Structure formats: structure tokens, C-alpha cells
């Protein structure tokens, strides 16, 4: 029995005490038995019973302990098993199991160790589980939204055996995909709705109605719009349908356009001066003349009402146009005439216009054709007018000047002109001005003639002024003027002769002319009373300048021509003027300045020299020109053929200073050489041009 207790950790005194108690109780029993006088057999039986009962109690305890142990083991095993299941479900490695069996503490310790782990794992599993549920719920919702048709609840049962993070991620991915799809679809739907809205606006169709026809959820501001495949498809088809309508209507529109109605509308407005307010109503139409399908976005531009409205307007305009065509043609024609009149161009179309009107009335010609023709004519006349403007202005001035001249002539003939009367000071002033102007006429004529010849040369046309060639007008004028001069001169001579005759006669008959009276007074026998003769002669003198001037102008023009001839000739002779290459300029540029300087000076040159100057100096100039030319050519290009004495020159120099002659660096370039700058072609290019022309 003792050794039973040895195993325990109970304090030994307690055991000792217990042993003594047992001993003392046995002793007491023996004492009792002694007193009672029990037999030994009885006594042994009693003791055996005692022993057996004790044993029974022990066995009982051991059994209990044993069962307890088994329970503990079971609990541990269960816990471990559960842990293992959870771990595997969560996809984690169950580390602790092995560990705990290896370092075997007591069973209770083991259990204590495993329980918190298990609890922890269970908690984590719960959390994971919730996450799964959440994700799956979302997936379910979206799937239901996107594809309600293939929704099956079975798909969304969570398999508890697989709660790994991998799986969760998978689900998350799936969710993201779905979310993306959803947003895509939403966007698509919104896009569709937008384009639908646009189309509806353009076509004038109720948008809400169209949309709710497709799906009631799409209407209004509802957030959750149905976005199943079907809806999208229906939306698309609705759009397609509307677009078709739009295209159809546009086609219609285009058809008009083909008939040029929309643009004729513009044209007609223009022609008929339709007020802007009226035009603005149709701005949408006219603006869309050139628009493509997707460019037409303005609300209502293609609504049926509006289309018929436009149609009506076009019809109205057409009718209006038909009725007004004749007026229009006349209007345009008068515009053309006016333009022609203003630019002094004579149209050859006078009768043609009449004819056109008749033809229109008879219906033989399409009035729009005539209109077009007239338009073209107007534009060409305008163009021409532009090119003629400068010259015309000058002509105006010149004409005004010659008018003044003729007035002056008239005025000079009036012998009472110096009579002080009303407004005499004004005419005097005018005469003064006119005289100044008259002196300028030759120069003006010159200038004008030069301008005209340039114009004619440029265009290869004659410059006409009210149907007459302007140059011939100018020439005529100069001739008339010359004649007038001559006439005047002859008169003067005659008068002089007469005067002499009278003087002779008077001398013959004794009556001498008074010495105080100059001869000139006699020249004007009908001189009015108060006018001093001196002034008269002065007036005559003033009248004189035009004559030499005139003569001179004529000559100067001719002389200019002459020099021109020379200018073009000489380079040709020099063999430079090949194929009209710009070298030409170079060759006579230097000749030009002196000549040009001379020409404007001539008109103001003294009268006496005028008659012979143009011929002699001109020859001089031309000589100079040639010489200049030659020199210039030499400098610019090369030595003249063989007459060079330089062979003797430079070798001698070389002989004197055999080798190192110092170079001159960047000395100032000679002025003459600068003309070489005008070379725009190399010798080879000119040579090839020459070869080709040969």
C-alpha cells in the first residue's frame, strides 16, 4: 500500500498521519475484537473484506482517472484535427501539431497549448469566411445586373474546404472583372443614350419616349440602369434606326443640294436682297450645305417640320426667282454698263444684251445662263478696271488739264478778259493756275504714254478709252496742238508782215509810227482801250512755251525709243542676249543712268537747243553706251578677243619678281565689278541655252 502514496507529491507527514490513522484504527479493531472475542477466522475474513473494499475503491479511482485521460486525449485529437482542417482550408501549413507530439508534456499542457491556437484559427476562419461571403455577394449582385439570364444560385455557394487567400484573390479578380465590365457597359449605355439623345434632338423625336421603349429603367435619373446585353442591343438598334432616318432625311437634303437649291437659296437671297432676318431662319440649312453626316448636330435641323419648311421656302424662292429673273438680268446688265462706263471700256455687248432679254422673254434662253454670263463679264471688267485704274486716273488728270488748256485758249482770245467786272479776279486766278497746269501737260502726256505702252506690252492689248485707242488719242492731241502752234505762228508772222507793210507804207507816206509804241502793239490791232500792250505781248510769251515743249516731247519719246533700240541691239551684237537670259540687264544698265537722267530734263531745256539737241547728244550717249558696255563686259567677264597687249605686261612683272609676289587681301572691290553680281546664270547655262537655240 505504501508505494501507492509514494507516487504522489503529497506532503509525507500527511501520509504518515494517514498511515498512523490506519494503524491506530487497526489497533482499535483488534482491541474491539479482543474484547468481543472474535475468532481468528472471523478476524481474517473481516480483514480480507477490508482489503477488498480498499482495492475496490482504488480500482474505481483508477478507472475514473483512466477515463479522464482518454477524454483528454480525445479532446486534443479533436482539436488537432479541427486545426488541421482549418489550416488546410485556409491554405496554411499546420506547424504546431508535429511540434506538440514531439515535446510531449502532459496531456493537459498539450490541450492548454492547442486550445488558444484553435480558437485563433477559428476566429481567422470566421473572418475569412465573412470576406468570402462579402465578395461572393457582390459578384452575385453584379452578375445579376449584367446577365440576369445565366444567373444560377448554385454558382455562388462557397466551398468551405477552400478558403485560401489564393481563392479569395481569384474571387476578387473575378469581381474586378465584373466591375469593369459593368462600368464598360454603363459607359456604353450612357454613350448610346447620348447619341440617341443627339439623334432625337436633330430629328425632333421625343427622347424619353424612345428610351423608355427600349427599357423603362433607362428613362430619367435612375441610377441603376439596366445594362444587360439585350438592353444594349436594343439601344444600339434604336440608334441605328434613328441614324437611318437621319441619313434618309439627309439624302433628301442632299437631293436638294444636288439640285442646288440650298445654294441657290443663298444666291437668290443675294440677288433679291432678302432681309437678313429672313435669311437667318434658314441659316441652319445653308450652313449644312457642305456638312457631313456626323457634322449635323444642331437640334431640329432634320426634323420633318423644319424640312418641309425649308422645302417651302426654296419653292417660294424659286418662284420668286423665275418671276424676277428678267429684272435681275436687267439689274446685272445695268451694273455691268455702269462699270464699263466708269472704266471707259466699251462693251461690244450692247445689242447682245438686248437680244438676251428678248430671248428670255421668248423663253429661248435660260435666264440663269445669261445671268451667269453677265456675272462673268462683270468680274472680267472688274479685273480689267483694276489694272486700268492707275492709267485711268492719269487720263482723268490729263483730260482735266487739257480742258483747262482749251479754256485758257478761249480765255486768251477774249479781248475783254482784263475788264474789271464781277468775278474777274477769279477768272484771273483760274487762268494763272491753268497756265501752270498747261506747262505740265507735256510731261503728263509723256508719262501717260509710257504707262500705256508698258500696259499694252504687258498685256498684248490696246488700251482703249471709250472705244478709242488711248495712245492714238494722245498722238492726235499732240498733232492738233502742233497744228495750233503752227497756225498761231503763221498768224503772228502774218501780222508782223502786215505791220511791216503798214510801217513801210507809212514811211512812204510820211507818217512815222510813234517810237513810244512798240511793234507788238501793232500786232494786236484790236487791242481794247485800257490794256497795256506790254502785257499782251507778255501773254503771248507765256503762250509760247508749250510749242517747243510739245515738239520736244515728241522727240524725247522717239529718242527714248531709239536708245532702247540701241540698248537691246548692243548686247545682242555682243552675243550676250541669248535666249532672253537676264544678263541683258547687266549689259545696258550702266548705259541707262545717263540717258534716264537726260530724258526728264529735256522738257525744261531751253527752246532754241531743243530742236537739235535730241539728235546729237543722243548719238553721243549711244556711243558712250557702247563704250560703257564694252568696258563693263570686259570687267565683268573676260578679255576682249585677241587685241590684248597684256601678254607683254604680266610676264614682265613676273620676270622682275620671279616667285613670291605678295597677294593683296580683300582690297575694296572695284565699283564696276559689282555689276557682275547680276549674273544669275553661269556661263555653262548660257552656253547650253545658246546650243539649244542654235
Amino acid at each position, binding site marked *: 500500500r505504501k508505494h501507492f502514496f509514494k507516487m504522489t507529491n503529497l506532503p509525507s507527514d500527511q501520509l504518515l498521519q494517514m498511515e498512523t490513522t490506519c494503524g491506530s484504527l487497526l489497533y482499535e479493531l483488534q482491541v474491539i475484537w479482543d474484547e468481543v472475542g472474535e475468532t481468528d477466522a472471523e478476524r481474517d475474513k473481516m480483514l480480507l473484506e477490508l482489503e477488498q473494499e480498499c482495492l475496490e475503491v482504488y480500482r474505481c479511482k483508477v478507472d475514473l482517472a483512466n477515463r479522464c485521460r482518454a477524454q483528454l486525449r480525445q479532446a486534443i485529437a479533436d482539436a488537432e484535427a479541427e486545426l488541421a482542417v482549418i489550416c488546410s482550408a485556409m491554405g496554411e501549413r499546420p506547424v504546431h501539431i508535429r511540434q506538440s507530439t514531439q515535446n510531449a508534456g502532459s496531456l493537459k499542457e498539450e490541450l492548454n497549448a492547442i486550445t488558444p491556437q484553435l480558437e485563433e484559427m477559428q476566429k481567422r476562419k470566421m473572418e475569412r469566411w465573412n470576406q468570402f461571403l462579402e465578395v461572393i455577394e457582390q459578384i452575385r449582385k453584379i452578375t445579376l445586373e449584367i446577365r440576369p439570364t445565366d444567373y444560377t444560385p448554385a454558382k455562388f455557394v462557397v466551398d468551405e474546404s477552400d478558403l485560401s487567400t489564393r481563392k479569395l484573390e481569384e474571387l476578387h479578380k473575378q469581381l474586378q472583372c465584373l466591375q469593369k465590365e459593368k462600368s464598360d457597359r454603363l459607359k456604353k449605355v450612357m454613350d448610346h443614350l447620348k447619341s440617341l439623345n443627339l439623334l432625337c434632338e436633330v430629328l425632333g423625336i421625343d427622347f424619353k419616349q424612345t428610351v423608355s421603349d427600349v427599357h423603362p429603367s433607362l428613362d430619367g435619373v435612375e441610377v441603376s440602369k439596366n445594362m444587360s446585353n439585350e438592353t444594349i442591343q436594343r439601344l444600339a438598334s434604336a440608334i441605328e434606326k434613328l441614324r437611318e432616318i437621319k441619313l434618309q432625311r439627309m439624302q433628301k437634303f442632299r437631293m436638294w443640294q444636288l439640285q442646288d437649291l440650298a445654294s441657290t437659296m443663298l444666291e437668290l437671297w443675294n440677288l433679291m436682297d432678302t432681309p437678313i432676318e429672313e435669311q437667318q431662319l434658314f441659316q441652319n440649312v445653308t450652313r449644312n450645305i457642305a456638312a457631313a453626316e456626323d457634322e449635323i448636330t444642331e437640334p431640329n435641323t432634320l426634323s420633318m417640320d423644319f424640312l418641309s419648311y425649308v422645302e417651302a421656302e426654296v419653292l417660294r424662292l424659286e418662284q420668286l426667282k423665275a418671276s424676277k429673273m428678267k429684272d435681275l438680268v436687267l439689274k446685272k446688265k445695268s451694273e455691268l454698263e455702269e462699270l464699263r462706263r466708269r472704266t471707259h471700256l466699251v462693251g461690244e455687248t450692247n445689242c447682245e444684251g438686248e437680244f438676251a432679254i428678248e430671248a428670255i422673254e421668248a423663253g429661248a434662253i435660260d435666264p440663269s445662263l445669261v445671268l451667269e454670263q453677265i456675272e462673268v463679264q462683270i468680274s472680267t471688267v472688274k479685273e480689267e478696271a483694276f489694272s486700268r485704274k492707275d492709267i485711268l486716273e492719269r487720263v482723268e488728270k490729263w483730260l482735266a488739264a487739257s480742258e483747262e488748256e482749251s479754256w485758257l485758249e478761249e480765255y486768251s482770245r477774249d479781248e475783254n478778259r482784263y475788264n474789271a467786272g464781277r468775278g474777274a479776279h477769279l477768272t484771273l486766278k483760274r487762268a494763272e493756275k491753268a497756265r501752270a497746269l498747261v506747262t505740265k501737260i507735256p510731261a503728263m502726256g509723256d508719262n501717260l504714254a509710257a504707262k500705256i505702252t508698258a500696259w499694252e506690252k504687258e498685256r498684248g492689248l490696246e488700251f482703249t478709252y471709250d472705244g478709242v485707242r488711248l495712245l492714238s488719242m494722245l498722238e492726235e492731241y499732240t498733232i492738233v496742238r502742233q497744228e495750233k502752234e503752227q497756225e498761231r505762228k503763221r498768224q503772228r508772222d502774218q501780222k508782223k508782215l502786215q505791220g511791216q507793210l503798214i510801217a513801210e507804207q507809212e514811211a512812204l507816206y510820211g507818217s512815222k509810227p510813234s517810237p513810244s509804241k512798240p511793234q507788238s502793239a501793232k500786232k494786236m490791232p484790236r487791242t481794247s482801250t485800257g490794256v497795256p500792250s506790254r502785257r499782251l505781248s507778255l501773254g503771248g510769251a507765256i503762250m509760247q512755251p508749250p510749242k517747243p515743249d510739245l515738239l520736244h516731247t515728241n522727240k524725247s519719246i522717239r529718242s527714248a525709243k531709239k536708245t532702247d533700240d540701241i540698248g537691246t541691239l548692243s548686247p545682242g551684237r555682243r552675243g550676250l542676249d541669248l535666249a532672253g537670259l537676264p544678263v541683258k540687264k547687266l549689259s545696258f544698265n550702266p548705259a541707262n543712268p545717263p540717258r534716264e537722267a537726260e530724258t526728264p530734263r529735256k522738257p525744261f531745256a531751253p527752246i532754241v537747243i531743243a530742236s537739235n539737241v535730241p539728235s546729237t547728244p543722243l548719238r553721243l550717249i549711244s556711243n558712250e553706251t557702247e563704250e560703257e558696255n564694252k568696258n563693263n563686259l570686259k570687267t565683268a567677264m573676260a578679255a576682249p578677243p585677241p587685241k590684248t597687249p597684256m601678254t607683254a605686261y*604680266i610676264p614682265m612683272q613676273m620676270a622682275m619678281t620671279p616667285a*613670291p609676289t605678295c597677294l593683296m587681301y580683300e582690297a575694296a572691290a572695284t565699283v564696276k565689278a559689282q555689276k557682275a553680281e547680276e549674273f544669275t546664270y553661269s556661263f555653262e547655262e548660257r552656253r547650253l541655252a*545658246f546650243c539649244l537655240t542654235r
Partner: protein
Amino acid sequence: MSAAPPPSSGRELANPPSDGISNLRFSNHSDHLLVSSWDKTVRLYDAGANVLKGEFVHGGPVLDCCFHDDSSGFSACADHTVRRYVFSSGKEDILGRHDAPVRCVEYSYAAGQVITGSWDKTLKCWDPRGASGPDRTLVGTYQQPERVYSLSLVGHHLVVATAGRRVNVYDLRNMSQPEQRRESSLKYQTRCVRCYPNGTGFALSSVEGRVAMEFFDLSEAGQAKKYAFKCHRKSEAGRDTVYPVNAIAFHPIYGTFATGGCDGYVNVWDGNNKKRLYQYSKYPTSIAALSFSRDGRLLAVASSYTFEEGDMPHEPDAIFVRSVNEVEVKPKPKALPTPPP
């Protein structure tokens, strides 16, 4: 050979072209001389033996020619074509065409390409080895600001001189655009451009008796070296006459150079020392082209009217080959430490 020419001019080649000489060049391998002419031919002479070895007739005036190797060459023709011919077989093919007359042609040994410049304002590069057919031979077309008047090559440098006094410098390895775009430092039309044999720059001559010496190096120090000088001028009775400088040829060994002008003179210059080394006696008419032989012992001179005064009677076109005396082309050592007073 029997008719003794003036000894000073050198030996005149027999059978010269019958019209103006546009260019002449010595071979890099022999004393063969290739001559292009306005008489629509390219002629090959053996300058040493004074023998005409071949003649190639073209569709139009030939404005330039160059050697490929000793046995073949290229020509630039006014009929817009670029041709290649093999001297031994007389075989001839068209490398390609420009849109206008082709003014000049160069062959680059470095790039293995033919480079042509034309009045159509382009530069074209050709691969002469390309299979026949112009679509294969054309390597590239490069727009120029104006009509091309003269080309010159050294190493990978290509200098293009055009009308309007423009000068483009290319690197042959990257032709996509000019390495340098310059304006001629001379005020007048460019006649000729030639690169220095040492590859540091180029000389450029103008119609106004002047030559500019330019350098590729764009640094300030590099550009400070450039200068221009007057030449081929005459002063007579107080009147200066200025002649175009048609030709420049560098001596392959000494780097000195000869210029030829419409005055009929050939001058030899030392560009480094800025001195004239020599002047040969006057030739009958304008100097149209100059070329030193590969060793610099011979100088070919084309005395041929260059049409500077248009169509007019002139001396017959002639080619003179003169042997070059070293003293004529060798730079004189500087009058060392102390500069001349």
C-alpha cells in the same frame, strides 16, 4: 609632236575635242587623262604617250567627268543623264537621270558612291555597283538651295557650291542634311570649289577674279584662318579688268594649288604662306580646267573658251600637258624667325 609648241606651255595633246572643254582629270592610277567636252564626247588620253585611247559620244554636251578606277569612269551630261563607261570594252550604261542638265560628277572612294550635282537643284548619290536599272543604283536625292555649280570631295567631306553663292558641306556618312550651310564669302557667282588635300577646308573661286580659302572647323580659331585674295586681274591704263576664275587644282603632294582664269593664265599659289609661287605664260584663251597627275609631276591645262562673252570667235580648244618643275609648286620655307622688314 613634230610641231614644237612653245616650250613654256607644255606639250599639246593631239586630237583635242572639237568644242569647249568642260573638265579634265588625271587618273589616280596612271597618267591617263579623262576629258569631257561640249562636243558631246568624253575622251580618254594617255597623257604620257600623247595618244587618244577612247572616245565616248553622248546625247548632249558633257559637263563633267571623273574616273571610277583606271578602267572605267563616269560622266555628267547636259541631256540629264549620268553615265558609266568601261574603257576597255567601250561598254556604256546609264546610271540614272536628273531633271535638268547634270553639272558635275564626283566619285567617292570612301563611300563607294558616285555623287552628281545638277541644275535641277538636287544632289544625287549613286551606287555604281548596283544591278543595272536606275531604281537600284540611286542611293538618295538631296535637295539643294539652288542649281549646283561645283562639287568637291575630300575624305568624308563633300562641298557643294550652288548658284546664289550658297555652299553646303556634307558628311558623306550622313547625307540626310548638310553638316554646314554657308554662304560664299565672295560677293559674286561661284565658279569652282576644291577641297584641300589635307581635308581641313576648301578653296572657292568666283567670276570676279577672287579666291576664298575656307576651313571646315567652325571654331573661332578655325574661322580666323580663312581669307580671300584677288587674282586673274589686269590693270591697264588705270582701268581694272577682272576675270572669272574657272579652275582650281591642288597639288597632291605639296598642297599648293593652281588657279586658271578667263585671262588665260595659270597661277600657282602657296595658300599657307599666302604667296604666289609661279605664273605660267599665257595660254591662247581662257583656262577651262586644270588637273595635276597623281604624283603631281604633270599638270593638264584645258585652254578653251568658256563662253564668258557669249558666242564669238575664239582660239581653238586645246589641252596642254606640262611637266611640273618642283620649284613651281613647292612651298618656299618661310623667311624664318625674323620676319622680313
